[in-house]
């Protein structure tokens, strides 16, 4: 496939995915994985999980994971296309929608619509957890790390960065391989 055709195809994938992020980029992780790894084979599981991990641990907004995915698929041009295609439509929608919304701000159905969407969002984040777990935790040691880290994060208020550091140390020492 020539480069321009691939970039156009990428814009056609990332654009719509940006527009269905409800409650953060986590909810579209499974869809990104399905389209880029499973269907097209543009990325390996290792690429996908590395992009997610780096975007989480780096001091940037989580949504910029798409920049890394684009970079890995098609270099700097791919990074640009993935970022703009994901972010620009949502910004335009929010800009114009925000002005319209002003007139309808005190409607009582709004919180109930949000409450209605919450279970869907939660299920999608659960699906994202499943996809990333399956792609990253393949050995008994990494499954143990997954279970322990999840338990700590659910039960304590420890900052996730400490666990990222611990995970990096364990992985770097070859314990998880």
């Amino acid at each position, binding site marked *: 496939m020539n480069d321009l055709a691939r970039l156009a195809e990428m814009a056609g994938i990332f654009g719509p995915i940006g527009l269905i992020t*409800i*409650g*953060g*980029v986590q909810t579209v992780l*499974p*869809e990104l994985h399905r389209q880029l790894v499973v269907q097209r084979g543009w990325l390996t599981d*290792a690429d996908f*999980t*590395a992009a*997610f*991990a780096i975007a*989480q*641990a*780096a*001091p*940037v*907004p*989580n949504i*910029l994971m798409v920049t*890394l995915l684009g970079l*890995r698929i098609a270099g700097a041009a791919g*990074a640009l296309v993935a970022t703009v295609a994901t972010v620009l439509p*949502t*910004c335009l*929608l*929010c800009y114009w929608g*925000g002005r319209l919304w002003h007139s309808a*701000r005190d409607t009582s159905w709004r919180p*109930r619509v*949000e409450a*209605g*969407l919450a*279970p*869907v*969002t*939660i*299920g*999608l*984040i*659960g*699906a*994202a*957890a*499943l*996809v*990333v*777990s399956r792609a*990253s935790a393949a050995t008994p040691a990494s499954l143990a*790390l997954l*279970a322990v*880290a*999840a338990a700590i994060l659910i039960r304590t208020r420890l900052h996730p*960065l400490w666990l990222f550091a611990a*995970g*990096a140390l*364990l*992985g*770097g020492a070859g314990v*998880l*391989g």
Partner: protein
Amino acid sequence: MTPTPRELFVGFLVLSLKSIGGALPWARRELVDRRRWMTNTEFVDLLSLGQIFPGGNILNVGVLFGGRVRGAPGAAGAALGFIAVPALVIGGIGALYWGFGSDLTPLRGATLGMAVVAAALLIATAVRLALPVVRRRPAHALPIALGALAAVGLVGLPMPLVLAVLAPISVSLALRDS
């Protein structure tokens, strides 16, 4: 005081580069406490609106706030500050990693370890979000959440399809409930 588009660019750039582990807590501190661009109530208002629209929540807060105080240039300033420079930063990190870092066994292992923790963070997020919602209305929330999880995570169905089916059902259940 009303920030100019240039100040919006700088403000949201600083905020973006601080957002380790999510931008939300930093956003409140930066916009309300430090820069005093808005009150806490205004921030909560903008955030709840920003969460309704697709895309990054804090990015949307920037677009809404910038647009409100300075029109299109204000919205563009905030959005560019939040995205453009941080995209270069993360792109640089990615280029280093895939350029030679992923050939080094310890670095590849370290990234794998972080990915496992990132997966654990997703599990914890889902559980923490689910507990209060499921407790409040188990008959509604549990089947919908598990249905979305299974359809997308296990069966691998396209998310737009799952959203198109489950979102209307879930919202109409919530509207009938209350």
